[in-house]
């Protein structure tokens, strides 16, 4: 497996009337071919804006990609022209969004929306594209696919619409599928259907996936690598088991401890993270989580911690922290007897 995409020092800002919004503040990572990367963060963590930046979907103005590069198969996506980018989007990188209610065009038939990309990117004729579209709908588990090509989005339920979105996303066999909270708007039984579907399609088609979510449970079931974002930065990333079982960033640990689990009975008091997420209109200095971090050192407030390999953990388990979390926790435990 080779590297599919290299994101380096990505910085995206929005210049609004209420001031500059520092949305993405230097994000760097590699994505391997066929890898499933789960990106977890809260609203305002920059997880969605970073994906939109990769896709060239940031409205400019007010947005601006200040610096960075996204190397995808030998080309820097950020340097491509609009027309060149249009040929990448949909064909090589596809994206599905949170809200299947609004991301389909309500006045166009499902068939029209499905065949658009096939004709543009793969040069299919109308009848070829229609045949392929019917196959795709069938692949994502929509019964009676050929007839449903003539249906409009409002005739589908939420879960079915997300299936249609997935069919559109995968229609041109992309190398990378970016899924931005694809199941957040869905009920839990429908979410399970969609996750199962994407897992199965990934096995068949072998594309890499970036799965953006706020739900640690969802990524635990599908991701190879977990990347935790906060304040427009990566605070921790690595093989999912290493990060979840042995977190080295206080935010990752705080998130894990604040979640109730289905498989434990409810006698434990939830450990809460104090404070609120940062105001992204203030230029970040230092570690963005420092104001809410009980273990923050003076340095955390002043200097931004770089991502470093966690000693003694799996390779690629990186953390951005000036403090040594396991050591701090050990000392705390010793103090409390």
């Amino acid at each position, binding site marked *: 497996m080779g590297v599919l995409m290299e994101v380096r020092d990505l910085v995206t800002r929005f210049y609004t009337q209420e001031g500059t919004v520092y949305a993405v503040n230097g994000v760097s990572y590699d994505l391997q071919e066929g890898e499933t990367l789960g990106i977890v963060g809260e609203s305002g963590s920059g997880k969605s804006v970073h994906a939109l930046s990769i896709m060239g979907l940031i409205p400019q103005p007010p947005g601006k990609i200040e610096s960075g590069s996204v190397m995808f198969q030998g080309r820097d996506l950020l340097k491509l022209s609009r027309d060149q980018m249009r040929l990448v989007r949909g064909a090589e990188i596809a994206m599905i969004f949170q809200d299947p209610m609004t991301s389909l065009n309500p006045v166009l038939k499902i068939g029209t929306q499905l065949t658009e990309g096939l004709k543009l990117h793969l040069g299919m004729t109308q009848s070829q594209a229609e045949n392929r579209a019917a196959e795709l709908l069938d692949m994502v588990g929509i019964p009676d696919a050929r007839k449903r090509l003539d249906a409009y989005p409002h005739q589908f339920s939420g879960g079915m619409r997300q299936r249609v979105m997935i069919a559109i996303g995968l229609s041109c066999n992309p190398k990378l599928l970016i899924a931005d909270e694809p199941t957040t708007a869905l*009920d839990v*039984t429908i*979410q399970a259907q969609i996750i199962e579907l994407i897992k199965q399609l990934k096995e068949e088609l072998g594309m890499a996936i970036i799965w953006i979510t706020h739900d640690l*449970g969802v990524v635990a079931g599908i991701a190879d690598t977990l990347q935790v974002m906060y304040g427009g930065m990566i605070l921790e990333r690595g093989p999912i088991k290493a990060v979840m*079982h042995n977190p080295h960033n206080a935010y990752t640990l705080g998130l894990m401890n604040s979640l*109730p*689990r*289905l498989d434990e009975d409810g006698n434990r008091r*939830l450990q809460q993270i104090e404070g609120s997420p940062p105001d992204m209109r203030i230029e970040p200095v230092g570690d963005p989580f420092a104001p809410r971090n009980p273990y923050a050192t003076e340095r955390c407030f002043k200097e931004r911690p770089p991502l470093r390999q966690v000693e003694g953990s799996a390779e690629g388990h990186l953390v951005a922290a000036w403090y040594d979390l396991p050591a701090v926790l050990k000392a705390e435990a010793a103090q409390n007897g």
Partner: protein
Amino acid sequence: MDSVVGSKVMQQQEQTQNEDREVILSVRGLKKHFPITAGIVIQRQVGAVKAVDGVDFDVYKGETLGLVGESGCGKSTTGRTILQLYRPTAGSVVFEGKELTTMRGNELRQMRRRMQIIFQDPFASLNPRMTVGNIVSEPLLVHNVMSKNERKEYVSHLLEKVGLNPFYINRYPHEFSGGQRQRIGIARALALNPSFIVADEPISALDVSIQAQVVNLLEDLQQELNLTYLFIAHDLSMVRHICDRVAVMYLGKVVEIGPTNLVYDNPLHPYTQALLSAVPVPDPEVEEKRRRIILTGDVPSPANPPQGCNFSTRCPVSFDLCYQEPDPPLIEAEPGHFVACHRVL
């Protein structure tokens, strides 16, 4: 003194009647159907959305009853119909010994002091043109319970209680974050010193790191003020954490109800089993081993429910009886644990 002793005796009597626990709210045969009309000038009813279609349960004093189910199953409508924010189509709601469904006007308004609601969306449920002080003191004004000065002091006290600085009393909702706004909503619900609160998805609009703050606050307040909660949610992990008992709804009916640990460890209804198996656990090793029951299809429309059991169209274990007989009744499978399924009968 006499009245205190009297009420204690009464309480004891009730306790012996109800397995040591006092029932604060009793819902029987509750139905709420919303009419579907056709015609522009003359509206005639052509059908009904059976949002709540025959719900029975009791809520005991001081407990948290979770009401779970997917969107459209009628859980929010149940909560609002209990509070008489919607008037029920049929059924009875007895709260603190009084029948609410036949109450009107002032009599009902007096009861509203005892029962309050916290809404899901802290961005939509606070009037943007009112200050925090006015929002929290409005219930006091409506019920005319305090003088102006007393009100101000009391509101400061309430804000402190929910973890907000009383200094912010003259600020407007937009100046607060989602979690803080939900605290304002909680303070407003507490203002009249209610005994029962319907919490309608109080944390689903909040960021993950804020959810635990609000849940801990709700738990602390329950301890301190001896509150009873009806906790409506779709986050089943959180429901397990916060609720003493849980009721699972599907298409307007309760399909299973019982003590939380019994229902979660031994779900009896095939819908509950599928629902619980679909909830992801934030642990990759657990997830690798879990077996999911993937339900096919979508929830049927409550305007046109299936002929037989409501769940028969998606049920992995349905048999002929499920398609012929109307919905099975709730039966007690183990002490306190009720289920409505032909398979279990």
